[in-house]
């Protein structure tokens, strides 16, 4: 599954365009960035409500494939700017972290949604 496949698996929309699609190897769900730093890995999609530019920095350090912002959290402009600069794809969804995690887990296993 690739980053560009996300909107087919989860009702979400990219926050900006022009990012490069990457292979999604796994996912991690957390709102504490210190926890994300210790548990998420390269190629993971991060499922979170932590809409702050630090999330992009963490995603960039870890080589995350995407950040999915849940609950329609407003995305600050400086976060979008940082994501654009770092090439981190951002997605926004009205669904909860629970729902998105379930969908992504099923999609990565190859189950029907």
């Amino acid at each position, binding site marked *: 599954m690739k980053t560009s496949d996300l909107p087919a698996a989860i009702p979400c929309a990219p926050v900006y365009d022009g990012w490069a699609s990457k292979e999604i190897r796994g996912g991690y769900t957390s709102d504490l960035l210190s926890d*994300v730093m210790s548990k998420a890995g390269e190629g993971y999609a991060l499922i979170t409500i932590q809409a702050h530019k630090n999330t992009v920095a963490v995603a960039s350090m870890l080589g995350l494939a995407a950040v999915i912002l849940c609950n329609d959290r407003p995305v600050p402009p400086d976060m979008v700017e940082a994501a654009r600069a770092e090439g981190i794809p951002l997605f926004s969804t009205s669904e909860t972290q629970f729902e998105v995690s379930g969908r992504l887990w099923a999609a990565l296993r190859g189950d029907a949604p």
Partner: protein
Amino acid sequence: MPLVRADLHNHSCLSPCGSLDLSPAVLARRARDRGLDLVALTDHNSARNAPAFRACCRREGLAALYGVEATSAEEAHVLALFATVEESLAFSEFLQGHLPRLPYDPRLLGDQAVVDAEDNVLDLPVLYLGAALDLGWDELCLEADSRGALVIPAHIDRLAFGALAQLGFLPEGPYAAVEALHPQVRGEARGYPVISGSDAHHPEHVGRRPFVLELPEDWRSGDGTVRLEALREALAAGRARPYWETLPPSNGR
């Protein structure tokens, strides 16, 4: 230059997690008994006990700052401190508009009491003050700074509600200092001056982690108000020593 014993992080009975026994009067009396010179009141997201705290500090002969410990949307805590009660109340009023309308049961979440200097209850606010504001960290810090506050990220190395745990690392900001719990914080403070604070929630917490600040003779103006500029300059000049640097040398560690 005078060495001032300061403690800029203290709650009162207005904080839902604060003891009802920790009224502004008890806070000021205990602070004087513990030998503090400068004390701030920082309830969660509200400064409504600041008027009582001013009266109590005058009674005890203490210098006071008035502010809040604000909770950003990311659930990270930051202290915003003002020289006057009026400024703290204006900021507090601004914050009330950014608190969510959550169900609040004092029995489960704790009482929130606005009191006077004699411990009489004046009001019991119904808006839950322990909630996160809908203001992001950067926006919140900049708003406090633009109002002239000393902005100090609280207990940045605490696992719950500390900036490092919530945000992974400390974002740059208009900070006069950062408050830490442990000396190990060093590099994570990113060069901002480090202070300690008691984060008192119960009477016995008052004065447990003060810091010492070397200030110029004129750190208080004629009417007793603290000059925030003097504090800002002393902090920036590295004249603060957190409590772990003021303890007597090693006890066998």
